[in-house]
């Protein structure tokens, strides 16, 4: 697990979210959300449905503009030109973000060109091997199963060697084999990446996280850094989710 401070010269955080607010119409989906993550850190973001978890992730991914507040990733501010920031992030979400009428190779080549990956062929081969899809390299993605699509989506997200990985319920809909591959990959790249993961899977989230947040009603209602006792956390989580549901 990543240590959470204590050194005299602490490095600048990799992700800084400060006073983030997002309004849709008259509805405040995010209200004054602030947190920071050190380089190599892993934030697990929990919360009931509609708490604002995915909205937070979409703002971090530059897919949604904040109504107010600031976001900085790897030293790049979202308020400035977001292009350099986009180079530093990779997103794995429910949707694989793959073109169904292209082959696995064509999809990865497309994204490699979009991100300016210099060792394109070598990188594609390496990642297809890693997600065990080398044998389906030239197959149309439309013919892939959900698990295969998600494995290819992992390869897509890692293609440009992002410093920060944003994961939106990455385990949902995966077969056990795909879960093993995803977990293996996450363990392998854990040290050199910073993660923000939205999940409902408490056990998995706590296993991986160096910082745990519970978001409810657009606010952070619980945060803890370092090791978290799963039983105590589950009790706290249930309490917040139930209160949130009543509110």
């Amino acid at each position, binding site marked *: 697990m990543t240590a959470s401070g204590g050194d005299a010269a602490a490095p600048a955080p990799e992700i800084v979210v400060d006073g983030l607010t997002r309004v849709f119409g008259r509805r405040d989906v995010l209200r004054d959300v602030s947190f920071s993550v050190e380089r190599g850190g892993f934030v697990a973001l929990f919360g009931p449905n509609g708490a604002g978890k995915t909205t937070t992730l979409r703002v971090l991914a530059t897919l949604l503009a904040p109504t107010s507040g600031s976001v900085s990733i790897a030293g790049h501010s979202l308020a400035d030109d977001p292009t*350099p920031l986009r180079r530093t992030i990779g997103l794995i979400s429910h949707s694989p973000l793959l*073109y169904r009428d292209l082959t696995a190779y064509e999809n990865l080549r497309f994204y490699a*060109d979009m991100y*300016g990956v210099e060792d394109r062929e070598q990188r594609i081969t390496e990642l297809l091997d890693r997600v065990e899809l080398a044998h389906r390299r030239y197959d149309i993605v439309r013919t892939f199963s959900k698990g295969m699509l998600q494995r290819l989506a992992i390869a897509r997200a890692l293609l440009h060697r992002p410093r920060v990985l944003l994961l939106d319920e990455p385990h949902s809909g995966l077969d056990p084999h795909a879960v093993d591959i995803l977990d293996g990959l996450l363990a392998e790249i854990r040290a050199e990446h910073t993660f923000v993961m939205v999940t409902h899977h408490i056990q998995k989230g706590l296993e991986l996280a160096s910082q745990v947040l519970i978001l409810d009603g657009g606010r952070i209602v619980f945060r803890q850094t370092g090791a978290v006792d799963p039983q105590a956390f589950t009790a706290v989580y249930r309490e917040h989710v139930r209160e949130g549901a009543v509110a």
Partner: protein
Amino acid sequence: MSAAPALSGRRQFWALLRKDVVSELRTKEMLISMFLFSMLAMVVFHYAFTATGDIDLSPFTGGMLWAVFVFASLLGLNRSFVHEKDEGCLDGLLLCPVDRVTIFFAKMTGNLIFLGLIQLLAVPVFTVFFVTSGYWADLSTFVAVLVLADIGICVLGTLLATIAMSTRARDLLLPIVFLPLIVPLLIAATAATTEVFSGDVTWATLWGKLAFLLGYDAVFLVAAWGTYDFAIGE
């Protein structure tokens, strides 16, 4: 190890264009619908006008040709973001560190290629059906009219298709906004084409129409350049 890779707008443009062309050539959904509509419209026009006997169609040729192409292009434009929207790939595209104008130019060029392919097949058929005088001598002028009008259709159409993509009634919204805005271009292209097909081209009159088409293209290119970031955003 994770040094920032060099980004090239040209490489991104070709990647976007290749992706759209390969996807379309694999499914042919857009090309087939555009081609079938063009052929069907010309056959209907042919039988409608020849049913009443021999009439001189030359004053109507430009109008018929551009009516066919404008509606055929609408079929294509409506589908130009279908992969991004229906397959959820728009987020993947917007995540990429790419200038939004590069996305516009790649999409616009793709639409231009598809419309050009349809015209390559449809113009000879149209000529056989409706054009009585040879226009070989003015072929380059005709190609100039086609290219300038096609650019206008695809520039405006791509911009509006992008805006319509995020709405629930995108299939309805695009023609409702596109058709009124394309009318000035349609009038100039129709007049210029009729002049070419009549075999009576005079540069004094044609120049004004070509200049209008050029101006129309320029205006909407600048508009797309300035607004595309907002058009494709949230």
